């Protein structure tokens, strides 16, 4: 990757964040944002609170979730050596949602919800992998297995909603499931951020080695690499990132498909370039889409609606243009 590209990739999310922090129901000028940051007394208290306690955590959450979901998407694509593998299509998002919903139903705290979410998210990956491990499995079989696992878990989520208390729990679970970054707060961030950051760092370090996973089983053995360790690390990190994002802001779908594929079009298939590019573009993408979600209309639109509107047609586009690969 060229130096200029790297500089652009580093600056992109920072610029996106700085622009987006100024946009919202009340417009705040960059100068005011700067003053809020340094704690200047020259601006109104409401402006400072809006910037520091409402928009900043939300933008940080957006950066983190966008990067996390995109890297998780890349990781699943390597793990399954299938370009259509994403947290959504592999049933991981469904499993993690069910885990989190169950956690909320049982009245667990944030850590408990995250653990539940991870356990069921990881369970869903294993279920999908097993379901597709027949003798003659093409890439399409894998996606179908993933969708089946996902639909099983979405039925279980409905069951959770059905038994949830209609007065207090049901609205909370329903709104959270829709996927929104509205719950952003520093306390919330402090819980989820470490898991996402550690997972991104591990995948970043493994980024070149992940390329090996595209090889056949015999070639993998012949590479002399500890394949089991590699696979385990990749899938655990990917599932951990996905479930951590989901337990913080619900099921924000399709980011793990859209962003990696945009990056593939620009930089090719080499994960060495793909991972850093996905971190940067994913973070910027999420912040921008979330800013749209909270500012285009009078009341906030759940961000998952926007990502799905972009993501589903995008999926079909990849499916048709890659027909040769899918068959």
């Amino acid at each position, binding site marked *: 990757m060229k130096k200029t590209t790297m500089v652009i990739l580093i600056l992109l999310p920072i610029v996106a964040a700085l622009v987006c922090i100024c946009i919202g129901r009340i417009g705040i000028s960059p100068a005011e944002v700067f003053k809020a940051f340094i704690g200047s007394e020259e601006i109104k208290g409401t402006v400072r609170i809006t910037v520091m306690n409402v928009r900043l955590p939300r933008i940080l959450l957006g950066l983190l979730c966008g990067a996390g979901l995109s890297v998780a998407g890349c990781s699943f694509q390597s793990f399954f*050596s299938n370009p259509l593998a994403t947290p959504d299509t592999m049933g991981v998002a469904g499993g993690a949602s069910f885990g989190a919903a169950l956690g909320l139903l049982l009245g667990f705290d944030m850590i408990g919800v995250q653990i539940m979410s991870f356990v069921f998210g990881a369970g869903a990956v294993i279920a999908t992998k097993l379901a597709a491990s027949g003798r003659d499995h093409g890439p399409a079989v894998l996606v179908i297995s993933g969708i089946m696992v996902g639909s099983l878990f979405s039925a279980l989520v409905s069951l959770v909603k059905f038994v949830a208390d209609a007065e207090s729990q049901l609205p909370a679970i329903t709104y959270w499931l829709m996927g929104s970054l509205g719950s952003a707060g520093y306390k919330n961030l402090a819980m989820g951020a470490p898991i996402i950051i550690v997972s991104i760092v591990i995948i970043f370090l493994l980024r*070149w*080695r992940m390329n090996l996973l*595209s090889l056949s089983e*015999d*070639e993998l053995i012949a590479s*002399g690499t500890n394949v089991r360790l590699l696979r385990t690390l990749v899938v655990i990190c990917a599932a951990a990132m996905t479930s951590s994002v989901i337990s913080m802001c619900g099921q924000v779908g399709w980011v793990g498909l859209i962003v990696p594929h945009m990056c593939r079009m620009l930089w090719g*298939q080499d994960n060495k370039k793909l991972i850093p590019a996905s971190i940067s573009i994913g973070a910027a993408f999420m912040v921008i889409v979330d800013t749209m979600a909270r500012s285009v209309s009078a009341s906030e639109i759940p961000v998952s609606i926007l990502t799905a509107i972009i993501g589903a047609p995008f999926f079909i586009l990849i499916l048709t243009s890659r027909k040769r*690969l899918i068959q």
Partner: protein
Amino acid sequence: MKLRTENVSFSYPGRAGNEKKYIFRDVNIELESGRIMAILGPNGSGKTTFLRCLMGMLKWTSGISFFDDRDTNTLSSKEFWSKVSYVPQQRMATSSFTAFESVLLGRSGQIGFLSTPKKSDIEATEKIMEELGIIAYKNRDCNTLSGGEFQMVLIAKALVSGPELLILDEPESGLDFRNQLIVLNTMDRLKEKGISCIFNTHYPKHALQKADCSLILGGDRPYFGRTEETVNEKTIEAVFGVRAVINEMQVDGETIKNIVPLYVTEKR
């Protein structure tokens, strides 16, 4: 490099009560540095199985193999694969890595688990691609390469780690006349450098022309020895059920062997 097997056999686990059916039995081979060995045999005679056992991907049912006089079971996978490379039976490229990125993957043994390729890895990759004459399509996607071009990428990927032994599974199958020759001549050049090759082949002619020693599987017993002694009209008829003649011709002062199949015989 020294490779040796002692009475190695392989059978798939038989059902209770049934007699075990051996794919091959009591095979003894010996290979030294800078030698080429061919493995011949009809379809289903266990050529690929033999290679996979040799590389530890399958376990011998009985017998032991030795690499540099050490039981291969006691070698760590890292030790073994630092000296041995494998070119699998050719299939179409499924990932769209570029040729360069694919060859570079062969360096994974030299690169730390959490690390990325260094300058020396990039240089080694460029050097081997240059040597094999494939540097021109370095930046092309593998799935746009022809069968012959892609085979050379796979060979480069195996050689970039600097192995002492190269194991190739039907390297010239499915290639045209010219590309077959390119692949076979590559083995000759490796031999000059002291690198040994083992290759499976469907062409007895290629064994006769290139291999110092040959193993024939699928007969009443395995035949192993110097190619001129092993691959002859008698063993070809016994194992393949084909009556063939082997002749020699003189070209530029060199003796070149050829084999012409005549007809299918009754007994196999």
